[in-house]
C-alpha cells in the first residue's frame, strides 16, 4: 500500500517539477512580450530525447559518462522521497537534514564528473566553472542551515523543524530567519543554474558547457533529474522557512518560482569571479550576522 503511495508521490513531484519549469519558461516569455511554450512542453522535450539516438563520444570514459546521469537521477529521486515522507508520514531518521545536504550535492558532483569524462574542451571549461560555483554556494547554504538549526534548538530532524513552525512562529518572520531565507534563495538560484549564476551552462559562450556531449536518453536522464530538483529544492526551502498546509505549500512553491523568474529576467549573467565574490564576501558575512542574531534569539 505504502509502496503505491510512494510511486504516486514521485509521479506528483515529477509533474510538479515540470509545471514549475514550464512556469519559469512561460513567465520569462511573458516578461519579454512573447507567447511562450505550452504547459506540456518539458514533458514532450524529455519524451523526444528518449526516441533520439544516444551518442557516446570517442575518447570519453564510457562507464563514468553513462553512470553520471543515472546516479544524479537516483539521488534526486531519493531527496524527493525523503522530503515527502517527512512531511506526510512524519517518518524520519536521525540527522536527515545532513543526509539531504549530501544527496543534493551528488547531482552537481556527478555533473562535474560527467563533463570531465566526456573529453570535450568546452565541457571542461563548464566543469571547472561548476566546481567553483559548487564551492561558493554550498558553503553559504550550510551557513543558512546552521541558522535554522540554532533556531530549532539544535535539532537535526526535518519533521521537528516543520512542526515547530506549524505551531506558530514561522522562521521567515524573524530577522535571522529572513537572512537565512535570502541565503537559501540565492543557493536555489545557483543550484538550478538559472541566469545570474548559469556560467557552467552558458549557451552563448561555451555552448551548453557541461551538457555539450550528452545526447538522447542520457540527456533525458539529466533533464528528469533537473525536473525533480526543480520541485524538491524549492520544497526543501519552503519546509525550512515557511511551512504550512499542503495547499499553502503549493501556492508558496509557485510564488518562489515567480521570484526566481523575476531575478532571472532583471539580471545579466555573472562572471565566475563575481559569483565567488558575491557568495563569499557578501552573503557569507550576512550569514554570520544571521548566526549572531539567531544565537541572541532574534
Amino acid at each position, binding site marked *: 500500500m505504502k509502496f503505491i503511495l510512494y510511486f504516486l508521490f514521485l509521479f506528483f513531484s515529477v509533474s510538479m517539477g515540470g509545471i514549475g519549469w514550464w512556469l519559469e519558461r512561460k513567465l520569462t516569455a511573458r516578461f519579454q512580450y512573447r507567447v511562450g511554450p*505550452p504547459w506540456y512542453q518539458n514533458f*514532450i522535450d524529455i*519524451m*523526444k530525447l528518449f526516441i533520439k539516438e544516444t551518442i557516446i563520444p570517442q575518447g570519453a570514459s564510457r562507464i563514468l559518462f553513462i553512470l553520471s546521469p543515472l546516479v544524479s537521477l537516483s539521488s534526486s529521486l531519493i531527496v524527493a522521497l525523503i522530503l515527502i515522507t517527512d512531511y506526510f508520514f512524519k517518518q524520519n531518521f536521525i540527522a536527515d537534514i545532513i543526509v539531504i545536504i549530501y544527496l543534493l550535492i551528488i547531482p552537481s558532483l556527478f555533473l562535474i564528473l560527467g563533463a570531465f569524462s566526456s573529453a570535450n574542451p568546452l565541457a571542461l571549461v563548464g566543469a571547472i566553472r561548476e566546481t567553483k560555483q559548487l564551492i561558493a554556494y554550498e558553503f553559504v547554504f550550510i551557513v543558512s542551515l546552521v541558522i535554522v538549526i540554532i533556531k530549532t534548538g539544535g535539532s537535526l530532524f526535518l519533521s521537528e523543524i516543520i512542526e515547530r513552525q506549524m505551531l506558530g512562529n514561522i522562521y521567515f518572520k524573524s530577522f535571522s530567519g529572513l537572512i537565512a531565507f535570502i541565503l537559501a534563495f540565492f543557493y536555489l538560484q545557483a543550484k538550478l543554474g538559472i541566469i545570474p549564476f548559469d556560467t557552467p551552462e552558458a549557451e552563448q559562450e561555451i555552448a551548453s558547457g557541461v*551538457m555539450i556531449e550528452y*545526447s538522447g536518453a542520457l540527456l533525458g536522464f539529466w533533464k528528469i533529474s533537473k525536473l525533480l530538483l526543480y520541485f524538491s529544492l524549492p520544497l526543501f526551502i519552503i519546509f525550512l522557512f515557511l511551512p504550512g498546509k499542503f495547499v499553502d505549500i503549493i501556492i508558496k512553491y509557485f510564488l518562489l518560482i515567480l521570484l526566481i523568474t523575476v531575478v532571472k529576467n532583471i539580471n545579466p549573467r555573472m562572471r565566475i569571479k563575481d559569483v565567488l565574490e558575491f557568495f563569499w564576501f557578501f552573503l557569507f558575512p550576512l550569514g554570520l550576522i544571521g548566526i549572531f542574531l539567531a544565537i541572541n534569539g532574534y
Partner: protein
Amino acid sequence: MGLKEKILVKSLWVFHISAGSCNNCDIEILDCLTPRFDIERFGMQLIGSIRHADVLLVTGAMNKKSAPILKDLYEQAPKPCFVVAVGTCPCSQHMFKDSYNTISSLDAIIPVDVYIPGCPPKPEAIIAGIAKLINKLTNDKR
C-alpha cells in the same frame, strides 16, 4: 502518423550553422526568436550544442573550407536529424555559382529535407519552411 513523429514535431530543437553566409540569413533566423515571431510557442528552441539538435538550419554558400566541417557536423548530430537550407545560397549557390571557392549546393553534400529560398528569406518564410518540414514528417509514415 505515429506517436514518434507526433512527439518529435512538438519539440524541434534547432541548431544554426553558418557555412559562409553573408550574415543576413543568420540575422533573419535570430528574428524568429523575437517577440513578434516567437518560435518557442511551437516548442522550438535555438540550442548551442550539435548533440542536442533535431534540425540543422544551414545558411550560406558552401566553400571549400566549410564543406568538410559541415559534413562532420551532420555526422555528429544524433539521428533522426533534419536539414533545412535557409536562403538561396545553400539551395542553389546563388550569385556565387561561378566563384573559385564554392563547390556545390548543399544537397550535394548532405541530404536536405526542406528548401527555403529568398535572399534573405523573411522570418515568416522561415517559419513556413519549418511548417513544411512538420507536414512532411507527419505525412510520411501514413
